[in-house]
């Protein structure tokens, strides 16, 4: 066994240990889906930051910065803005009524089971595609570290994720996320000084990076309008993607949410800043990489010492796992709670519910790997699937969620039209639109027009639907 293998083995033992103790701490559905709604600021903020910091950061962001330069870094400044919006505008009203899932909120605010099923369906389809991309990356890392075929790596990677998520639910997810955030942070934190030692510190790095790629500090590599619409995509996706919103329900109260989100913002910015520096180091130290996606694996294997290098690769795996486990919770709850228990068998007994919940996660988690093994969806690039997923979620959910708690006149029909229209327009732009503009712009505009227009032309919502979010708020 190599040092790398020992590190991975130790890492997975810790994750299984957390899953086991989380099973013992899970006493009901509320524990299983939202960790009892009693998380503190550290675990709540850490799970939010870890979910955000996916393979998109450790493989995609560094890869794009390697090829396109620092202009992409400005895009990511929209992220703290979105978290501020979430905590200052959205959370106070959104968390007045704690639900188990986001579609459950949609049902309550928009007074209909059908619209809840629609929201669950959108979540289900989008997350299966997104999880596929992460699983492919997991298979590639398993291939690099253990030398097993990528397909075997994907199956094993999924099996590990499913075991602790199915068993421990949200409690397991938040505690593994906190651990994974520490691993990711340490890997990036120690990689930076080791890289800087090779290039005469930060000043030397900046000078050498410009020598190696003269476009690195310019805006010439990517069209400005594309950068702006990417920023919009990250901003809207940051506000209202279901896997982030559900964490607001999982935290204890508004004070905890404020502190937790602030902690998440600090961690996300710090990790991204470290990743930016590592991208520059990769430009200098490895000027002829065939693809930017190899930048971080090269930093891990050639800049870092053996143990830390293995920990860094484990951190990249951790980044994927912490994102996928959160999505499994969201997609699994969409299938079992919002579709099965809501539309198919509303009278299911409480004892059976937990089994249905676990079966939901198992089914949703197995689907992407089954599709991949069948050859469907192979070869897509992680960072762009992240962007497409974010655009779809933003187009579908930002207006129904944000508009739902800020605008009394928002109706069920308006929300349904916004979801369907937003998703359709995003897909249409993705396939037919100009590549210089992110599809989120089109999706969001169409969603907004339909949300407002259809709401104004339909019967106003009943008082029972809006009272929980608007009463006593002036």
């Amino acid at each position, binding site marked *: 066994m190599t040092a790398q293998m020992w590190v991975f083995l130790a890492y997975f033992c*810790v994750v299984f*240990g957390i899953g086991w*103790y*989380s099973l*013992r*701490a899970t006493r009901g559905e509320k524990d299983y889906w939202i960790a009892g709604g009693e998380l503190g600021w550290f675990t709540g903020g850490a799970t939010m930051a870890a979910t955000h910091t996916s393979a998109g950061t450790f493989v995609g962001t560094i890869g*794009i910065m390697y*090829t*396109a330069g620092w202009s992409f870094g400005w895009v990511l400044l929209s992220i703290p803005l979105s978290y501020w919006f979430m905590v200052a505008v959205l959370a106070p009203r959104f968390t007045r009524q704690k639900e188990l899932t986001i579609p459950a909120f949609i049902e309550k605010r928009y007074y209909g089971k059908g619209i809840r099923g629609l929201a669950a369906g959108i979540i289900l389809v989008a997350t299966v595609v997104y999880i596929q991309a992460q699983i492919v990356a997991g298979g590639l890392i398993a*291939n*690099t570290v253990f030398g097993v075929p990528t397909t075997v790596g994907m199956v094993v990677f999924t099996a590990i994720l499913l075991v602790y998520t199915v068993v421990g639910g949200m*409690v397991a997810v938040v*505690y593994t996320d*906190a*651990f994974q955030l*520490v691993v990711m942070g*340490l890997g990036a934190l*120690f990689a930076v000084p*080791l890289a800087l*030692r*090779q290039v005469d510190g930060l000043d030397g790095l900046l*000078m*050498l990076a*410009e*020598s*190696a*790629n*003269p*476009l690195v500090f310019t805006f010439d*590599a*990517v069209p400005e309008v*594309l950068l702006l619409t990417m920023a919009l995509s990250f901003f809207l996706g940051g506000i209202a993607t279901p896997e982030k919103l559900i964490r607001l329900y999982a935290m204890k109260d508004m004070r905890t949410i404020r502190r937790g989100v602030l902690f998440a913002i600090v961690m996300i910015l710090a990790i991204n800043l470290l990743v930016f520096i590592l991208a520059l180091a990769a*430009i*200098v*130290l*490895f*000027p*002829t*990489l*065939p*693809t930017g996606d*190899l930048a971080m694996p*090269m930093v891990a*294997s*050639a*800049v*870092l*010492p*053996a*143990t*830390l*290098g293995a920990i860094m690769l484990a951190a990249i795996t951790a980044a994927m796992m912490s994102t996928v486990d959160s999505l499994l919770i969201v997609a699994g709850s969409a299938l079992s709670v919002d579709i099965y228990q809501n539309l198919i068998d509303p009278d299911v007994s409480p004892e059976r519910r937990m089994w249905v919940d676990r079966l939901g996660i198992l089914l949703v988690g197995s689907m992407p790997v089954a599709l991949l093994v069948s050859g469907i969806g192979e070869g897509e*690039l992680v960072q*762009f*699937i992240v*962007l*497409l997923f974010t655009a779809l979620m933003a187009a579908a959910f930002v207006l129904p969620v944000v508009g739902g708690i800020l605008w009394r006149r928002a109706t069920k029909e308006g929300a349904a039209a916004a979801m369907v229209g937003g998703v359709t327009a995003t897909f249409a732009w*993705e*396939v037919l639109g100009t*590549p210089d503009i992110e599809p989120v712009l089109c999706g969001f505009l169409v969603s907004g027009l339909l949300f407002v227009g259809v709401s104004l032309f339909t019967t106003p919502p009943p008082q029972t639907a809006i009272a929980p979010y608007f009463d006593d708020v002036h």
Partner: protein
Amino acid sequence: MYARPLSWLLAVALLPAAASGQASEAGAWVTLLQQVDVEMGAGDGSADVGVRLELGTQELGAPLPLDVPVTFEVLGFGNATVDEVHLGQGGRLILWPTVGSRKVATVRLRAEDVRDGKASLEVSYRVEDVLETPGTAVHARIPMLTGPPVRGETGEDAFQARLSVPEEWTVTEGFPSGLRASGPGGYVVSLSVAPSIVGFRARTDGDWRPGFPLLVDVLTILILVTFAGFGWRHLRRMAA
């Protein structure tokens, strides 16, 4: 479904390569193997570097683009830089400064350089001032001549280097970090792509001291074990 972003990424991915004058499209040169020998002189702080390159194309079996010149580049680190290289087939190649410390040169390969569907090229160069010597510790960075990108994601070690230093020196840290001892005064390392430098820190008095990477490794393990311990206690309390 992802045709739009993929085409955008392809365009962006070509930017650095285009900046260095060699796009990695089909039919362009790729590096199949780069073997490097670095010989450190003890006294004058210089290094002699020999490079053997095997070049081919992205698609196996495709005709070699002999009409396309091969571009080489080198990044200078501090005083350590390269102005010219000697070609194994005779002649020398001047490296021209571009931006900052980056220098480039192009060479056109001939039909007689091709064997078994691959083009081979041998070059050598001397780098002055590679050593910084604060006391008994030395720090050396030897710029590497880099050619076309490697063939995409083959998983093989396309870059193989052998470093020779005076036998009484003890290397405590290397770049690439996989640099390992191989015989008296000899060190070897291999990577999937060529780095812009091969570097090391060593002690000239033969003493062994822990290098910075070892300290980082130990610190990382300590922090993780401490954090895991606290987490375990917290979860046990929750489960109880």
